[in-house]
């Protein structure tokens, strides 16, 4: 008989919300601490700059600006505290609904403060790391002078990477589709073709691309066959990457083609369309939408792998940067390459996200 009673009890005495005062206070304390810490780190930066004889009013202004930045968090923490106080008052006057509203606001603002505190802490740690040991990190990776001097050379060499991945990208997209269709060919006569295609993808999915590049880049010219001997190394690199990524692309295509419901095949075949016509007009156009994001992801992966072609002596951006780095005992030129790769990749990953999101929106519509 206790059951209905406790239910009755709960109905008459709903659970009051927490006012969130302690949480808000914690946010405020952390915000203040972070403010002090930021001031301290900026002070350290200023000292390092002076020690290195660097003096500029814009830099000072920047430091002051950074030091002031966390004051915004004081505002949000205070706001949380204010809401928490109103929640407490509402609780005292037994206004549960108002208490919930203010408590929820207090929690939201406290979380907001904590989120930014966390991000800023990471930023400060990075700055400390950068200036540690009298800017050793900064000097090793970000020597502006070196970056400026080597930039032209690196950019030129990066063009080699771009050419390689554009060619290998287009070729592997086509080659992958051919392999995927070979793997999906129906019937007994196509069995040997299916077998070869399956073996090919299995082999190249398991081979590290650096080994393929090495074998093809060094091996094919060694065979002495005229055609391969006269090919530029870059073309061999394209061939190696096409073979490797063709296998990845083929798997994506195959998954995409197989994701089209068999009823679409039945509908097309029942109208008299042949196997090839069904693929071309019905299945591939529907599959392409779904597989563009994963294909693009493979493409991005391949761009990064163009840096591996240095093992056979192609002067790409990374190889060029290594040469410069070993001359200067400094990695800043390699940093330039890293930045170039990041710059060309970020727009593409954003694009993939956009495409995935668009597809999802379409799917939600029904």
């Amino acid at each position, binding site marked *: 008989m206790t059951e209905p009673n406790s239910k009755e009890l709960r109905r008459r005495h709903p659970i009051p919300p927490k006012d969130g005062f302690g949480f808000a206070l914690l946010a405020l304390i952390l915000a203040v601490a972070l403010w002090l810490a930021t001031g301290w780190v900026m002070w350290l930066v200023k000292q390092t700059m002076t020690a290195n004889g660097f003096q500029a009013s814009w830099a000072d202004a920047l430091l002051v600006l950074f030091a002031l930045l966390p004051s915004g968090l004081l505002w949000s923490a205070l706001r949380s505290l204010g809401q928490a106080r109103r929640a407490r008052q509402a609780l005292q006057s037994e206004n549960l609904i108002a208490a919930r509203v203010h408590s929820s606001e207090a929690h939201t603002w406290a979380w907001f403060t904590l989120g930014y505190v966390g991000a800023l802490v990471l930023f400060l740690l990075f700055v400390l790391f950068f200036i540690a040991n009298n800017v050793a990190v900064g000097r090793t990776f970000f020597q502006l002078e070196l970056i400026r001097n080597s930039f032209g050379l690196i950019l030129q060499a990066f063009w080699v990477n771009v050419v390689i991945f554009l060619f290998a990208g287009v070729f592997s997209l086509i080659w992958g589709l051919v392999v995927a269709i070979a793997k999906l060919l129906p019937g007994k006569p196509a069995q040997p073709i299916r077998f070869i295609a399956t073996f090919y993808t299995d082999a190249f999915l398991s081979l590290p691309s650096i080994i393929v590049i090495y074998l093809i880049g060094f091996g094919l010219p060694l065979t002495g066959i005229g055609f391969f001997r006269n090919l530029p190394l870059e073309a061999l690199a394209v061939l190696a990457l096409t073979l490797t990524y063709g296998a990845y692309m083929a798997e994506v295509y195959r998954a995409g083609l197989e994701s089209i419901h068999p*009823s*679409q095949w*039945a*509908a*097309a*075949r*029942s*109208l*008299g*369309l*042949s196997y090839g*016509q069904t693929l071309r*007009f*019905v299945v591939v*156009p*529907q599959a392409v*939408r779904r597989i563009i994001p994963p294909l693009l992801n493979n493409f991005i992966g391949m761009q990064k792998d163009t840096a591996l072609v240095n093992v056979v002596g192609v002067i790409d951006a990374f190889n060029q940067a290594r040469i410069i780095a070993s001359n200067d005992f400094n990695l800043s030129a390699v940093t330039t390459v890293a930045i170039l790769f990041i710059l060309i990749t970020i727009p593409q990953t954003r694009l993939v996200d956009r495409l995935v999101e668009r597809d999802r929106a379409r799917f939600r*519509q*029904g």
Partner: protein
Amino acid sequence: MSFLEIRNVHKRFGANEVLRGINLTVEEHQVVCLIGPSGCGKSTLLRCINGLEEIQEGEIRLHGDRITGPGVDLNALRRDVGIVFQSFNLFPHMTVLQNITLAPTQVLRMPEPEARAKALALLKRIGLEHKAQAYPDQLSGGQQQRVAIARALAMEPMLLLLDEITSALDPELVSEVLNLLRELAREGMTMILATHEMGFAREVASKVCFMYGGVVHEEGPPEQIFSNPQRERTQQFLASIIEAGRL
């Protein structure tokens, strides 16, 4: 020689023998209704007639010509035998018009303008001219199913197979599809339809076949099957249909 002759057709999925010796003849301009409990093989039989499934034994003849077994040009057969599915199966990436013109232009090599004109005439007939440029997901279920019928009709088939084409529709959309079938029947289109719409079967069928146990268990004119079934299984099936308020 009948228009369509199905003789002793057996169909197995692995160890599961779904059709165990189907015998059925259909004359030109007849409407034959297949009824029977779910899973008795109605869809499978229709898919065999269209060559979407291979049969293991027996034969099917259309106009005296054998359409099962090795060496049959299935693509050619399917020009003559159209099928409409329960789940419409329109091509979602194509407009209504493209759905209808795809097969005539690609399979019959009909010139594009002619195919379009024909498709528009068909759409006008089913009252969906204004939807020619719409995509399937912009149509109601009933409209989609009518487009699917138009898509099959665009190939001018000699025989139309319809597999429970109203089963996936909301009740208020069923009649618009049945009206279209009624009209086709009146014009003399030869049709085989698997259906649970007993009232409709009674109205339009030339012959009703009750399938059970992988064979045609009982067949006859609709009045006989529905009012005076001879065999016990048929009686039980119809009793359960009546109990469900569907007859």
